[in-house]
């Protein structure tokens, strides 16, 4: 199966659940879904097209919105399902029911972006240390890291 055939199948199977199917380079397909549809889209892709392998979930801070990208792959191509959720009310449905391995990446999203993943089996903190203050989400663009001033102990010995 080449990219064109997969795009055709995806469009046929999912209809208007997915929009903006693009294929900017070989074996890279991007598509867009509404946040509430992501889980069902992934289920269809997994069952019908063999996209069993979820490489990772990426979160991107777009300013007003968060973009969440699910990177899937099968033996022919790499398919990326993106979705956008508003930053003011970041809620996302869990896909752990479809792909159990997604939990790590979803918990990472919760920590790093403050996205609330609904129905996540295990919502504990994942990336950040236990004593990290609430409400600080390092990968958001408005979170700036203040580099501490470098202090080198001692002086010249020779």
């Amino acid at each position, binding site marked *: 199966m080449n990219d064109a055939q997969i795009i055709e199948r995806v469009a046929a199977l999912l209809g208007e659940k997915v929009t903006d199917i693009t294929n900017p380079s070989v074996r890279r397909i991007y598509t867009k879904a509404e946040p509430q549809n992501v889980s069902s889209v992934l289920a269809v892709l997994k069952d019908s097209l063999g996209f069993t392998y979820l490489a990772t979930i990426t979160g991107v801070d777009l300013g007003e919105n968060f973009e969440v990208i699910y990177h899937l792959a099968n033996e022919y191509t790499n398919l990326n399902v993106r979705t956008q959720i508003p930053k003011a009310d970041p809620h996302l449905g869990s896909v752990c029911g479809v792909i159990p391995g997604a939990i790590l990446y979803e918990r990472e999203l919760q920590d790093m972006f403050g996205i609330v993943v609904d129905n996540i089996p295990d919502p504990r903190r994942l990336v950040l240390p236990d004593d990290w203050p609430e409400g600080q989400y390092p990968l958001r663009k408005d979170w700036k890291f203040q580099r501490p001033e470098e202090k080198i102990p*001692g002086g*010249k010995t*020779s």
Partner: protein
Amino acid sequence: MKIAAFLPELLRHLFKKPATVDYPFQKLVPPKGFRGTPFLHPELCIVCRACERDCPAEAIEILTVDEAEKKFKMIIHNDRCIHCAQCVDSCPTTPKAMDIDQLFEISAFSRWDLKHEWVFVKAVVKPKAAPAAPPASSATPS
């Protein structure tokens, strides 16, 4: 399945010279092109600051000592250096003002001992040498 499959090999090595080297007394010579510690040829530097900009570890610092006399000071913080030699690749002069040596025993008792500095007068670019941008370097200023 064979019992003691390793035995011949082991016995053969019992009387062979060990493969390891008695390090502080015997040293291996690093190959040509080994990336050691970067240093400056101050007479060649044109203060283009390409190395300062491209250094991924922020280990190179160029300060202005005297603007009128075109006197500059370069500090190489070897305590931060990751020995990638990108500064050598980025250096646009021919021959290169930034260079790298082959030393690998560079530990010191204090991080301050690792900082090297050069105070120098900016070299004048000869018109002939200017267009010789090295082809392999993607890092030449665009």
